[in-house]
């Protein structure tokens, strides 16, 4: 059995952390080599990077560091492709980062970004997108194998942390998804799969039925650029703002219905799935109705992720949520993950710590350069920029530098893989004080519109 097969086999283990091999790092390095050999033949940008850096063999973690991509890689398409709806050009760009050949995609009749995403789905490619809060979305390829493994990984991470979900009979929850019922990105598809795996028939509730269209997000980003360029008219800005307001109002009405339904099910096990920032909004809305606490049934399951993610949540948001909804250790799981990672790192029950599954090779880098702070043999805690090689992902290269600052414990007592002890986003940390008059247009133009 190859090193790669050995690690991929753990996807179906009950406890992949306990099942990690003794010589984990050596097995991981061998698996990285296998993945590199395979992907270089498929992904032009990776091959070019490996050639530029002269890396043919992975003999150390340092070698792997030179092969990491970043968010910038996955948003490197020129925005003009989207503005001008040049789907052929966008496909050509996407091909340089995807493992599978996209030749078969049929772009006839493709008009909007949503159409393009659907056209790719028809050839078995799902596009994973980071929510483009900065205006530009990243696009990451997932193929059928990635989609097939997505549900088992979510189930595995939930069961690792929460005794309630482990002990629950199949299809026994009323499921409340803290997100919209339809969206063209694969994130919403995964939420639906997870909800369907947990829910009693007819008991999946979404926060809103107002769809989240990829093209709408794009139009907004485009308008922001038009405002910057001075080509947008005040009436156009007003129209978009009005549309956003109407949309927000409809979402707000759906939100109230969602809350009514949740309140009606407090005496039965429910599953809450979604982002902590959304659950915080649910709490604030319930408080506004005069409800001082809303303890869930003790056999409930809450998978709440996302951290504070650039939102204005208070420091103690998690404690507030735990108190308000009665999220005991038995109920509560907050996996740490991101759209760029297969599955997630499951939370250790009752701790703000996350076990790193054996198919994720963690790397801690200097905040601003490629210096590896966690070479082979590292023990104890190391703080720095989180990077990883995802050995599981099939649709693209798995090496990535993230925007997160983490503290990783490389010798956690009683566990066979490293553990993440703390996570912050660099964006949320205080910036440096280097003043310069050279700036970007985005920085200069005031009054940019926020995504609705």
């Amino acid at each position, binding site marked *: 059995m190859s090193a790669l097969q050995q690690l991929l086999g753990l996807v179906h283990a009950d406890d992949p952390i306990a099942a990690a091999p003794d010589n984990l790092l050596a097995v991981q390095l061998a698996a990285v080599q296998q993945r590199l050999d395979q992907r270089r033949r498929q992904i*032009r*940008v990776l091959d*070019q*990077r490996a050639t530029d850096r002269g890396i043919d063999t992975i003999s150390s973690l340092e070698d792997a560091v030179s092969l990491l*991509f*970043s968010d*910038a*890689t996955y*948003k*490197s*398409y*020129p*925005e*003009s492709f989207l503005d001008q709806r040049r789907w052929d*050009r966008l496909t*050509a*760009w996407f091909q*340089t*980062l995807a493992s599978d050949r996209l030749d078969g995609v049929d772009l006839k009749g493709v008009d909007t970004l949503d159409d393009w995403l659907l056209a790719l789905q028809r050839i078995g490619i799902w596009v994973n997108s980071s929510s483009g809060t900065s205006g*530009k979305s990243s696009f990451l390829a997932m193929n059928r194998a990635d989609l097939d493994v997505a549900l088992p990984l979510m189930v595995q991470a939930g069961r690792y942390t929460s005794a309630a979900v482990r002990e629950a009979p199949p299809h026994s929850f009323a499921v409340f998804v803290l997100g919209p019922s339809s969206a063209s990105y694969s994130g919403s598809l995964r939420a639906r799969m997870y909800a369907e795996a947990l829910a009693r028939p007819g008991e999946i509730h979404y926060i809103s039925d107002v769809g989240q269209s990829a093209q709408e997000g794009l139009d907004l980003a485009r308008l922001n650029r038009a405002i*910057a*360029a*001075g*080509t947008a008219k005040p009436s156009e800005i007003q129209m978009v703002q009005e549309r956003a307001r109407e949309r927000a109002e409809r979402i707000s009405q759906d939100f109230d219905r969602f809350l009514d339904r949740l309140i009606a099910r407090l005496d039965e096990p429910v599953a809450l799935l979604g982002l902590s920032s959304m659950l915080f909004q649910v709490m604030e809305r319930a408080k506004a109705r005069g409800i001082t606490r809303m303890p869930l049934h003790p056999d409930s399951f809450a998978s709440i992720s996302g951290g504070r993610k650039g939102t204005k949540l208070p420091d103690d948001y998690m404690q507030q949520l735990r108190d308000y909804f009665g999220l005991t250790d038995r109920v509560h799981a907050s996996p740490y993950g991101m759209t760029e990672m297969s599955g997630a790192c499951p939370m250790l029950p009752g701790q703000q710590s996350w076990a790193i599954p054996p198919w994720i090779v963690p790397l801690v880098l200097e905040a*601003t350069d*490629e210096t590896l702070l966690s070479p082979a043999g590292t023990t104890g805690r190391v703080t720095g920029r989180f990077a990883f090689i995802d050995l599981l992902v099939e649709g693209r290269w798995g090496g990535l*530098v993230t925007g997160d600052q983490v503290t990783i414990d490389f010798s956690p007592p009683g566990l066979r893989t490293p553990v993440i002890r703390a996570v912050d986003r660099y964006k949320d940390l205080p*910036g*440096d*004080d*280097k*003043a*310069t*008059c*050279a*700036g*970007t*247009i985005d*920085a*200069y*133009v005031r009054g940019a519109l926020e995504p609705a």
Partner: protein
Amino acid sequence: MLKTDIEESGAQRILPVPHVVRGRLVHGLDRVHSSRDMGVDFATPALDPDALIWTRREPLPMLDTPIAEVMDFLVELGIRLDLDSNASLQQAFEGMNRVSALGPRVLENIYRDMRLMFDRRLMEAEITAAIGPLDRLDGWVEHRPAGFANRLRAFPPRLVHIMAGNVPSVAALTIVRAALTKGVHLLKLASNDLFTPSAIIATMAEIDPDHPVTRSFSVAYWRGGDASVERLIYQPQYFDKLVVWGGESAVRNALSYVGPGFELISFDPKVSISMIGAEALATPAAIAETARRAADDVASFDQDACSASRYQFVEGELEAVDNYCAALAAELGRDRHYGNGSIEPTPSAIREEVEVLRTLEPMYRVFGRPDGRGLVVRSDEPVDFHPDRKTVNVVQVPSLAQAVQHVTVATQTVGIYPPARKAALRDALAAAGAQRLVTLGRVLSADTFGGQPHDGIFPMHRMMKWIIDEGEDA
């Protein structure tokens, strides 16, 4: 004398950063800060907020000093700002090498050239253009624009200057202009230039510590945005205006303090571009000359200045444009007076985008390598990333007139070549938002100071308090 020798404090190596209070150096290691840029820990004296302000009850030191005497002093200061003999300047230079990414050769050129601004002819030109007759700075001058006998004075202001450190010459520029206003000035240091302003004021004190000009300046560092400091002193009771050089966060932060009686003069973040006509690429010799001029404009202060060109809109056939790109990439690898041929490798965010674009040839073509010697990306639409650290986006356009659509209110300098193309473009560029036009290669021309507008305004004009006395005089 300014001192910047590294102090060994326990296991830590700490770079001392002095403050200046009313012309007197204050040394101390009470507050430790970190310059993340160059990874240097530095320490400043504790801040005494009372020492940073001038109350409105005490007389302004320069109020009754004739402007001629102020200029005499500044001329003398210029003579003393001699790197070979001025120990404070030498110390500042040593300190700058630890906090500035510009490197010793460029920093030395900047330090040697700073004194050129202390030229009486330039100072008089600055006043004449921005204020009018010099005596408006010295007293109440008869002013009868519509025949009524009024008296006008360009009254000395109380200013806080939020300094940028990317271009250290700005320290000298700020101090000359500030002194000519005859007001009082608090200079807030940037973490990438912690020394130049203090060294200049220290040199004033070496000439005469009690001179009214010397006593009109204070210099301090606190972390930009530190409300515990800024809330106390950014008040109309103490200061009239905030002069901000800097990026978005500095400007946004400053805005939160602006209100009636406390006004903002903002040198905002800007982007600069070049426009190159087909005739400038007609022959190999023309391409070489154009590339040399263009590289002068790109590489100024290692492209970390708002005037440094980032996008170049170029007319011509693809082959000529590509030849030009190759020549430009090569030129960028050469040392220039205010720019380094080789800097640290291109930041990863740019490198990774360029890496992908490189695979999309012929739609895009990349010249040079992300090794800090210069990178040129040719495209038919501007790239989405911010070209920085010696990265240029050459955009092939059918005509320069069509390139005007890419000019916005955030466009500062437009370098044009050949110069004959300027006349036809000037009005359209200004209407679109551009603020300064130059012949390609002249971004760092010596005539920046001395009666020229900056960012669309005459800074000294905006700095003054224009006070009128109307009606009969006694």
